[in-house]
């Protein structure tokens, strides 16, 4: 929904400027993580020691975390359905439905009006591969109203949606698609990247659909999808903020307790976590998209293995990213280096994304990364460097703590990869130098986006061994 865009502009506002034009959002990284991603260093769920968890008889999961530092409550209503649940020939349906749940006709007030009335902020939603999250920051006094609005979303469904509104909203989704991914080969690249990472049959695809697919979606499709997936037993409600757990629990029971599961049998969430036990192993080592867009990038994907704890490897990855950023700055080869752990329910992977500077030779980037791998081994043997790195991690963990919404979103995540609450500063030991090989180029899926001068190969996608 639009608020995500608003947040982007707010961020840009501090600089007195605006966001970047669309071509800058064409990174495959963005394509694969285009949903309110939790900050890379957000507190992990198990760090929330004060969390109270319970389940209503109708299956709704509830997580409550009291934090009285500010008179506000972050609320996330997370439905366990995402783009991977899109029917095969209806890509984009989960996202379209997310939009439609905000559209109501009289006598039912639209969701945004209800939130506006109580002065809620950060009202937004995002459709990810695994979940659809509805978020709002409530004034603490308005908790009951906020709960009622989210319960209504499930209870009312699309019963108050008019057909003209559904058609209008489809055009809005098309505009969103155009704004983010008007150049469709980037979506194909994202889908192929998923296909390579999650070898074999898999449910993931680019989070946005093609224009032709979107244009065929109907409100009837959305109504079926809603009945199939928007159910209390597939929903997790998370509240973090200025609340009293007993009082909040009573309010949750009052407004959500009466919701009953639809008569159609639920799609069993089943043993989806079994996927996470399979190693994600790239079957192709390199994908290359040539396009008319000048923004060139090279991304390295490192799948998280079934026995690995990604948090334990965080310092190694962080060091790799930091070293590459520094060398990129010194050499002028790259304008941007970004790295993060992307957690999906069916598997996780690290992404290191390097924006190649305009006019710089693409071929120089990989040798640079290889050289840094070597340097890292020495770096991890240097205790002073480890200490510095550890303190930086400690700081970033602390910076994440006060953000109520980031914590709530974290608690809504359902990825199967175990995450533990770690003191990152204690993880740094010289033995980590042995882990550098974990991020060897030979173990990466490499995804290139190259500028193409000629129109003939614009949009061509290659898979190279």
């Amino acid at each position, binding site marked *: 929904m639009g608020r995500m865009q608003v947040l982007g502009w707010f961020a840009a506002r501090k600089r*007195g400027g605006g966001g970047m*034009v669309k071509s*800058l959002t064409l990174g495959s990284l963005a394509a694969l993580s285009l949903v309110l991603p939790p900050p890379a260093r957000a507190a992990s769920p198990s760090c929330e020691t004060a969390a109270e968890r319970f389940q209503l008889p109708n299956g709704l999961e509830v997580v409550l975390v009291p934090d009285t530092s500010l008179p506000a409550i972050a609320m996330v209503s997370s439905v366990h359905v995402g783009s991977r649940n899109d029917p095969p020939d209806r890509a984009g349906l989960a996202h379209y439905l997310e939009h439609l749940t905000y559209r109501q006709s009289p006598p039912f007030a639209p969701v945004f009006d209800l939130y506006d009335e109580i002065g809620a902020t950060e009202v937004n939603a995002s459709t990810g591969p695994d979940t659809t999250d509805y978020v709002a920051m409530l004034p603490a006094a308005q908790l009951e109203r906020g709960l009622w609005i989210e319960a209504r979303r499930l209870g009312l469904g699309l019963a108050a949606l008019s057909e003209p509104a559904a058609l209008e909203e489809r055009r809005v989704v098309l*505009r969103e698609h155009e704004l983010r991914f008007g150049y469709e080969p980037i979506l194909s690249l994202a889908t192929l990247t998923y296909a390579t990472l999650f070898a074999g049959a898999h449910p993931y695809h680019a989070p946005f659909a093609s224009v032709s697919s979107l244009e065929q979606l109907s409100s009837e499709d959305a109504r079926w999808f809603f009945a199939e997936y928007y159910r209390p037993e597939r929903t997790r409600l998370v509240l973090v903020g200025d609340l009293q757990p007993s009082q909040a629990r009573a309010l949750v029971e009052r407004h959500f307790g009466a919701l009953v599961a639809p008569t159609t049998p639920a799609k069993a969430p089943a043993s989806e976590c079994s996927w996470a036990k399979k190693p994600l192993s790239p079957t192709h080592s390199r994908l290359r998209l040539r396009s008319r867009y000048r923004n060139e990038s090279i991304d390295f994907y490192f799948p998280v293995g079934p026995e690995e704890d990604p948090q334990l490897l965080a310092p190694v990855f962080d060091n790799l990213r930091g070293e590459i950023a520094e060398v990129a700055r010194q050499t*002028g080869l790259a304008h941007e280096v970004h790295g993060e752990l992307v957690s999906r329910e069916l598997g996780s992977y690290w992404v290191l994304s390097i924006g190649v500077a305009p006019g710089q030779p693409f071929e120089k980037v990989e040798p640079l990364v290889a050289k840094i791998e070597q340097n890292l081994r020495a770096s991890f043997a240097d205790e002073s460097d480890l200490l510095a790195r550890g303190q930086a991690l400690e700081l970033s963990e602390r910076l994440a703590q006060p953000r109520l919404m980031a914590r709530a979103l974290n608690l809504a995540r359902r990825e199967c990869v175990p995450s533990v609450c770690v003191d990152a500063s204690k993880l740094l030991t010289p033995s980590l130098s042995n882990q550098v090989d974990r991020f060897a180029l030979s173990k990466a899926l490499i995804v290139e986006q190259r500028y193409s001068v000629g129109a003939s190969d614009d949009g061509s996608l290659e898979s190279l061994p």
Partner: protein
Amino acid sequence: MKNQLLWLIAGGAFWGAACAPARSALPPAPPPPPQSELAVWQTAPPLVPDSELSLPFGIRRVSLDNGLGVTVVTRPETQTTAIELMLPSAGDPSWGKVTVMAEMLRAGTRFKAQVMTNPRLAFEAVNVNTSESGTSFSWQVLPRATEQALGLLSSFVFAPVFDPEETQSRLREQLTYIQRYSGSNAHLLNLTREALPGIEMPSPEADARGLFKFDQKTLFALHRCAISPRAAELVIVGPRTFEQVIPWARAAFGAVSAPARDASCDALKVAPHDPEKSRLDRIELQIIYGGSFDPFLVMALPGPSPTSDEYVAFALLEEVMESRDAGSAQALRHMGATYGIHSWINTSLPGISLLEISGQVEPDNAQAALKQLIIDMRELEQTLTEQQLEEVKRRWRNSYVTSLSSNRAVAGSALWQIQRGRAPEAIKEWPNELMAVSLAQCREVARHWLSNAQPAVTVTGVPVKLVRGLGLGVGVHEMFWTDQLQEKKKGL
């Protein structure tokens, strides 16, 4: 072996069928619940009065002999320290000499891109941001490192090295940023602002040409002109007390003196703007040809200085326009014409605020969108209601309160209040100041600034029909987009 994969494979087994004409039928949706069951969702629980706001910050400010103001905000419950230093003497209207010099402060320090290598202290890198109003330095550190951080920040800003070798590599970095900036919306915004009288935003390409002439001597000369503790403000927010922090700040910054300036420095001075003189007589429309995407609209309109009594009401009017429940944003969205059109107040120019709007629209509705946005702006004086204003005020207040979870945001708010000519304690009063603005005040300010609004407008990805039939008096200026924006030549 090179294996050419085209669209079909890219689409994959899962959704490659998206392009196929025939789709499999889904099972029918179950019938909706009976109206009697839905009635419960028509009436919301009663609205509860908002609770009293209490912002228990300990705030104190002192002035050092060299003119530097030091504000300490104590928040014992927090675990980090945020430091903000603002130098109004180092303003720059573009990505120009002062901006680049401020970035070159890093050359020769012991910073890496993300983490300082000093093993005793490990922080984020100092964030440097230059606008017309000045240069700010922002840093977040562990509380136990506050004292060292203040000393390092002082050295960083006031005693630079400008290491020649590192300067060259950092200049290359700046060149890359400038190259990327030239194709960005930030550039479009500057083009739009520049169409307003008295506002000059030199093109970044022009700045880039002289970039590699920056040697150590030039940088030191620029530093002497632009970097001064006089009228500067330092804000420290974290768990440490005023009694702890002030001696550290004095030790770090107290001995810094304002450098002597010569006549060569005058060219770098940024004079405050007069908002009345930046008003246009008619809408100035810049049309940029090229690009293959949906039309993208950018608008800028002058408004009162942030120190003016009109400012808060003006900012509230912007929030109303941004709001989903009023005006163009909702109307256009309900037409399906846009995913979002957003507005904000730009206060980065001294003496003036700018109401800025941008967004992407459906090609067929670009003209309607442009027209509606301007008419909406002009009619706000009449259309604004008490209820809309109250909702917007409450949302803004709540958003402000939520933002205070971050020490960096608190430091930024304190600096902002100081720049508005208020005491830093005003961060606690800001919600009340906001809530006290009346409908009559807002209407008066709307009458003054919006009723005859003549904005500067830039449109890219232009549809065939934009100007003809617009029905508004506009001056048109055409440009085309290649690698960089160039004025459209005759006959193109």
